[in-house]
C-alpha cells in the first residue's frame, strides 16, 4: 500500500491539526459552559493525537501510536477528574457557567 503520506503530504496534516487545535483553543475561550469547554480541550488533544499518528507514519515508527494510547489515558483521567470537579461545583452553585467562578480574584 505504501506510505499514505506520499499522496497527502505531511504538511497538510500539520495544517489540519493546527486548525483543529486552534478551534479547540477558540472553543475554550468562546464558551461559558464548562462542558463545552471540556469538549474543546478534547478537540485540542485529538488534534495532537492525529498529528502523532501522522508523524508515526511519517517515521514509519510505532512509538507515536503508542504515545497516543498514553495520551488517551491522560485524556480519560482528566475528563474523569474534571467532571468530578464540575459535579461538585454544580452541587454548590447549581451552575456550570465558568464565568460565575469569580470569587477568587485581585
Amino acid at each position, binding site marked *: 500500500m505504501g506510505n499514505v503520506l506520499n499522496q497527502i503530504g505531511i504538511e497538510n496534516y500539520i495544517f489540519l491539526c493546527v486548525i483543529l487545535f486552534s478551534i479547540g*483553543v477558540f472553543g475554550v*475561550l468562546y464558551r*461559558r459552559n464548562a462542558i463545552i469547554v471540556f469538549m474543546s480541550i478534547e478537540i485540542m488533544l485529538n488534534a495532537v493525537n492525529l498529528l502523532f499518528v501522522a508523524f508515526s507514519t511519517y517515521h514509519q515508527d510505532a512509538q507515536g501510536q503508542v504515545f497516543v494510547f498514553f495520551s488517551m489515558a491522560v485524556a480519560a483521567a482528566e475528563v474523569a477528574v474534571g467532571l468530578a470537579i464540575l459535579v461538585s461545583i454544580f452541587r454548590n452553585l447549581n451552575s456550570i457557567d*465558568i*464565568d460565575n*467562578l*469569580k470569587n*477568587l*480574584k*485581585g
Partner: protein
Amino acid sequence: MDQTYILLLLLAPLAGFILNVFFGKKAGHNGAGYLATFAVFISFCVTLMYFLQINKTATPVQVNLFEWFSFGKVTVNMGILLDQLSLLWLMFVTGIGTLIHLYSVSYMHDDENRHKFFAYLNLFIFFMLLLVTGDNLLVMFIGWEGVGLCSYLLIGFWYKNQDYNDAAKKAFIMNRIGDLGFLIGMFIIAYLTKTLDYAQIPDAIKFKLSLLQEPQQMKFISALSIAALALFIGACGKSAQIPLYTWLPDAMAGPTPVSALIHAATMVTAGIFMVTRMHFLFDLAPNVQNVIAIVGAVTSIVAATIGLVQNDIKKVLAYSTVSQLGLMFLALGLGAYEVAVFHVITHAFFKACLFLGSGSVIHALHGEQDMRKMGALKKWMPITYITFLISSLAISGIPPFSGFFSKDEILMTAFHENKVLYVIGSVASIMTAFYMFRLLYLTFFKDFRGTEEQKHHLHESPALITFPLIVLAILAAIGGLISFPGASWLNQYLAPVLGAKEHGEHHLGTTEYALMAVAVIGGLIGIGIAYAKYLKKGEVPPADEEMTGLHKVLYHKYYIDEAYEFLFVKPINALSTFFRDTLETALSGFVYGFGKVTNAIGDQGRLLQNGSVGRYLFFFVMGMVAIVSYLFYNKIV
C-alpha cells in the same frame, strides 16, 4: 628640673580647677576662692622665678612634655616655651589673675555657685598659660579655644538668665569664626613649612625661600600672606576687632571680675600675643600689615564713638577696651610689636583697675549698672574713686600715668608711618578721654540719682576688693616706666624675641615732643568737654526713648548687631526652617514615593486579575502568540 617647675606652673591652676569642681562646695564658705587664688599665686611665683632668671640669662627655656599627634609631615609636641615674650605675658596674666581672684573672693561672696566660678577662673588661667607658653601654634590653639570656652562658661555664669546665655553663646560662636581662620592659617603654615613650632617656622621659611626661584618665591610669600591674613582673622575674633567685635560688649553679662580678667586684661589680648608671636610671618606680608593697621584704626574709632554715649558703666568700659585693642592692632599693623605689647601691659593694669572699680560700684549699688542712676559716689567710696580716677587719667593719656607713654608711642609710630592713621588714632584718644571722664563724672560726682533704698546701703567695699584696686592703680600709675621714652627697658627685654628693630627707637626730637604735647592737649580737651557737659551743666544722659539722630544711632551701636542678625542669623535660620519643614519632607516623600508608586501599581494590577478564566486564557494565548511570533520574527524557529 625645668620640667617640674613648668608642670607646677601649668598644673597648679588645673589642680585648682579640679579640686574646686569636686570639692569646692565642701571647702567652706570662702575655701574655694582662697584655694583658687593660691593656685594662681603658685603660678605667679614660678613665673616670677623664671622672669628673674631670664632677665639675667636671656636664654629661653624650652621643654617637650610629650608627643601629641601628627598629621601630614608635621609632628606636634606638647611643648612649652618660656621666652621673654611669654614670660612677660605670664607675669601680668598670673599677677593680675591673682589679684582678681582675690577680689572675687569678696565679690562673689554671696553666690551659691562660687566654687564653680573659681573653678572656671582657674581653668581659664590654665588655658591662658597654655596659650602663652605653648611652643607651637597648635598648643596655642588649645589655649586659644580653651579660654574661649572659659569665657563662654563665665559669661553665662548666671545661667538662669537666658540673655546672658545668649551673650555667652554669641561670644563662643564669634570666637569660633575667628578660630576657623586660625585653623586655616595653621594649615597653610603646616603645608608650606612642615612645622608649627615657632622656633622652626622662620628657618623653614628661609630655607624654602632659598630653594625657590623668583616667581615661585612671590607665590610662596603670597601664600604665607594668606596664612597671615587667616591668622589675623583668628586674632580679630579673640581680640574683638571689626567685624567680629560685637561679642565683647555683650560679654559684660558675666560677673565683673570676669570682665576685668578675661575681657579686658588677658584673654582679649591673645590676638595681639599671637600676632607678636608670629611677627616674622606678618613682617613678610606688608599688605596684611596694612589691613591690620586699618582694621585696628577703624575699630578704635568706631568703638570710641559708640562708647561716647553708652549709659551702662560696663558697656562703656567694654567699648573702651575694643577701642584700645584697636589701637594695639594699629601698632601691630605698623610693625611696632613692642609698642603694642607695651600698651597691652599698661592697658591690662588700668583697664583691670577700671573694671574692678566699676565692679566695686556695682557691688555697692546691688547690681545697678546704669550710670543715669548713679552719682556722687565719691562721698561713700573714696578708695574706689581715687583708683578709678588714676586709671581714667592713665587711659586718657595724661602724663605721668602709664597710658600716656604707651598710647603716645602708638601715635608716634602712626605719625611716622601714616598720617591718616595718626589722625584717626588721635581722635579716638580724645574720645576716650571724653567718655572716661563722662563716666567718672556721672558716677562719682553730683547728686545720687538712685533710689533711697540704694542710697541707704551705700558703703565702701571691703578690703579684699579695695586691695587689688590699690595695687592695680599703683601699677596703672607707674607702669609706663617700663618703657620710658628714650630708655626703654621693655624694648631691650623683647629684643631677643622680636629681633633687631627696623624702626629703631624714637629719638626724642622736637616732633616727638610736639606730638606728646598734642596728645596731652587732646586728652585734656576730651576731659574738658566732659567736665563742661556733665559737671558744669550737670547733664544726665537722656532716657532710651528720648534719644534722637546720631545719638540714637551711636547708642544702638550703629545697629551692627541688628545688621548681623539680618544678614546672617535670620537667613540661616530661615534656611534651616526651610530645610527642616520643606526639603526634609520632600526628600522623605521622594523615598516613600517609590513605595507609594509600587503599591499603586500593585492596586492597579489587582484589577487585571479579575477572576475570569477567560481572561486568564486570553493572556495565556496572547503570551504564547507573542513568544512564538517573536522567535519566528527572529528566524529562530
